[in-house]
């Protein structure tokens, strides 16, 4: 069968079971948009290519399937660089197709030419420039394989216009030949035994669960391991929901804005079991002072993560789910074998008690007074309490992100979508759209900042016209709040370029102009009715403009570069009493 390169590209995407793609056409990608009309693939027309990339990410986060975006050359390709980098940092599988000027014109500074492959090389797991239409099915197959296996990540395929028009003989490759790409998925059995041995000696263990748990679909396996060992778990920003917050062994989020118990348990641990986590500086604080007494078991599918920041005592390269399942077996047999050994598998009662005391003495605190300014934490709590348990929460970057992560109860995997590694403002709205497209029957709430919202809000037009009924809660504190917080604490309250205004733009009118329902909330008693009203709307997106107290800061906080032992609690902590 003879096809054009463009037809082969679309057919290849169909072969990869792509059901939806996000994009925006232009000159160089025109040939590919034509066969798209006849394809079963749903295309969602975005308003900015950054939106397409984040939507693909949101889709991938929520479903585990690769997100696909397609844009034209030049400015469109550069517009999607931020999502590629975001996906690279957070190991999100997305496949981006870009148009390119005709092959013969490459290098001539042709109209809308840019070196897409060169620009995106450091922010993709791999990328391809197609030089022959005959290669298209092979490259697409390789692209999806690379994006979704091993440590997942973004890939890009750059398709020159003439190659898309060139005919080829259709085929679908039945195998993949990438001699330099063979991810290790099975953990080394001796290392796994050593890990179990180390675990058997620990009196103060902590499982340090990272985003790799979710990537490996290992939440069930993790639960089994926890229940077998009684080891407490911290879930990083990228792993919220990987272990249920309601579980008594869940300590919540560690790191710069982690809760006291999660942070301090790691500092005082004698063993950290890092599962798909990468010792990010936002978790470790000052590396030299991080968990000084802890031995380290580090499991990751990416060998380069082992020893990159902290040298593990037991490194295990492998897929988290497979390794955890093996660990469960190894622990069971170690327990059986050392039944009579007094020193093995000591009681953790003392450790559990200490953790409980910290949780009691150092809870997350805030106070919503009657008639007082609306607290952002109160809004998050109300959202949490008046939405279904399996609601997907998508956040932007800033204070609101930390409050969302701290205060929500994530009891299911894949219910928290956010930009961790890159910290991309503007992520929430498009990522929420992508998540909702992937999970149409679930409620999707974006918890966004006023600053973030203004970066990508136009994608609500996309959502309204495509009838993707996401809901957006703007915690509108009229500031680039997180930056303001740092200026308040570390720059002697010298506020430099952080004020945004609470009512410019008018978020309600803006929402309405974009085909959404807009609701304004100024007082605490209006919060619940507004949420209920938003929940009842299912035919268009909703935006709630929560006017929150700009003075509120995120606590606890470990100042950047400091030891986690220097955790700062809310100064008002003592006056709150028990909550």
């Amino acid at each position, binding site marked *: 069968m003879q096809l054009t390169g463009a037809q082969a590209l679309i057919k290849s995407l169909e072969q990869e079971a792509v059901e939806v793609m996000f994009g925006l056409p232009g000159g160089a990608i025109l040939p590919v948009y034509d066969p798209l009309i006849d394809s079963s693939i749903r295309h969602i027309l975005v308003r900015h290519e950054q939106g397409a990339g984040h939507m693909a990410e949101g889709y991938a986060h929520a479903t585990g399937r690769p997100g696909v975006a397609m844009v034209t050359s030049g400015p469109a390709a550069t517009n999607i660089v931020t999502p590629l980098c975001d996906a690279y940092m957070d190991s999100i599988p997305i496949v981006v197709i870009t148009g390119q000027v005709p092959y013969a014109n490459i290098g001539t500074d042709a109209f809308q030419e840019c070196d897409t492959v060169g620009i995106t090389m450091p922010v993709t797991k791999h990328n391809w420039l197609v030089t022959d239409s005959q290669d298209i099915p092979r490259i697409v197959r390789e692209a999806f394989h690379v994006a979704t296996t091993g440590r997942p990540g973004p890939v890009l395929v750059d398709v020159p216009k003439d190659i898309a028009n060139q005919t080829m003989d259709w085929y679908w490759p039945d195998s993949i030949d990438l001699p330099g790409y063979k991810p290790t998925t099975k953990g080394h059995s001796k290392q796994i035994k050593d890990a179990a041995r180390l675990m058997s000696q620990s009196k103060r263990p902590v499982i340090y669960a990272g985003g790799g748990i979710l990537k490996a679909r290992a939440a069930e396996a993790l639960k089994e391991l926890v229940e077998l060992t009684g080891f407490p778990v911290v879930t990083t920003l990228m792993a919220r929901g990987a272990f249920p917050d309601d579980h008594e062994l869940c300590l919540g989020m560690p790191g710069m804005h982690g809760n006291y118990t999660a942070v301090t348990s790691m500092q005082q641990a004698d063993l950290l079991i890092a599962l798909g986590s990468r010792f990010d500086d936002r978790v470790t604080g000052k590396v030299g002072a991080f968990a000084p007494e802890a031995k380290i078991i580090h499991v990751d599918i990416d*060998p*380069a993560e082992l020893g990159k920041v902290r040298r593990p005592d037991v490194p295990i390269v492998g897929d988290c789910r497979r390794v955890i399942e093996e660990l469960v077996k190894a622990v069971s047999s170690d327990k059986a074998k050392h039944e009579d050994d007094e020193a093995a598998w000591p009681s953790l009662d003392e450790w559990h008690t200490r953790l409980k005391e910290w949780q009691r003495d150092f809870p997350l605190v805030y106070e919503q007074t009657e008639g007082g300014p609306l607290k952002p934490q109160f809004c998050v709590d109300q959202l949490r309490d008046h939405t279904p348990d399996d609601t997907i929460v998508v956040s932007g970057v800033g204070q609101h992100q930390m409050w969302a992560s701290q205060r929500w109860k994530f009891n299911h995997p894949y219910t928290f979508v956010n930009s961790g590694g890159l910290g991309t403002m503007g992520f929430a709205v498009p990522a929420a759209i992508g998540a909702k497209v992937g999970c149409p029957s679930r409620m999707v709430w974006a918890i966004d900042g006023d600053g973030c919202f203004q970066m990508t809000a136009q994608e609500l037009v996309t959502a309204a016209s495509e009838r993707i009924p996401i809901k957006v809660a703007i915690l509108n504190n009229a500031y680039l709040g997180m930056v303001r917080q740092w200026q308040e604490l570390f720059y002697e309250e010298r506020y430099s370029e952080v004020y945004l205004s609470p009512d410019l733009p008018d978020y309600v009118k803006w929402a309405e102009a974009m085909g959404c329902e807009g609701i304004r909330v100024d007082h605490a008693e209006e919060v619940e009715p507004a949420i209920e009203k938003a929940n009842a709307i299912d035919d268009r997106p909703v935006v709630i403009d929560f006017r929150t107290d700009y003075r509120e800061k995120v606590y606890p906080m470990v100042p950047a570069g400091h030891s986690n032992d220097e955790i700062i609690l809310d100064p008002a902590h003592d006056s709150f009493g028990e909550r």
Partner: protein
Amino acid sequence: MAATGDIQHHIYSITVENKFGVLSRVAGLFARRGFNIVSLAVSPTEDERFSRMTIVVDAASAPLEQVTKQLHKLIPVIKVMELHPDDAVERELMLVTVKAEVDTRSQITELASIFEARIEDVGFEAITIQVAGRPDKLDAITDLLTPFGIVELQRTGQIALPKLSRSQQRLRAVKTRGA
């Protein structure tokens, strides 16, 4: 060019797929991770599907293990070997044009013969010498030629292969994949 003999360095022999853009992926990786390249040589191998890159890296800037692991993550990289200088045959080629007046010419040719260098070109006031060998040998002849006046100098960068094992090898073959 920086002499390669006197600083702490690692030699990597990397087998890569012979496709365009691979060099820029490798070079980009080094740049992004802040690893300093001392020299780099790329050439085809006995198998036309693959090329071999020999990269000498400044050890102070580049933790051995991270370089190896990061290189492995590049899809077109097939195999990475770190060659211990004691266990590798290292060679480099140098062309050097040096001032050679009538009265100094014989001293220079004498020096060249000690180093088993070849005279490649002779002009009225200068001669061009080719010398091959271990990097420290090239450093040495460069030092000795400097007083005569070096006009131009070009080195290829090092290439290396593991020494053939007669006894136990200390080659640290960093296996394809895995820890």
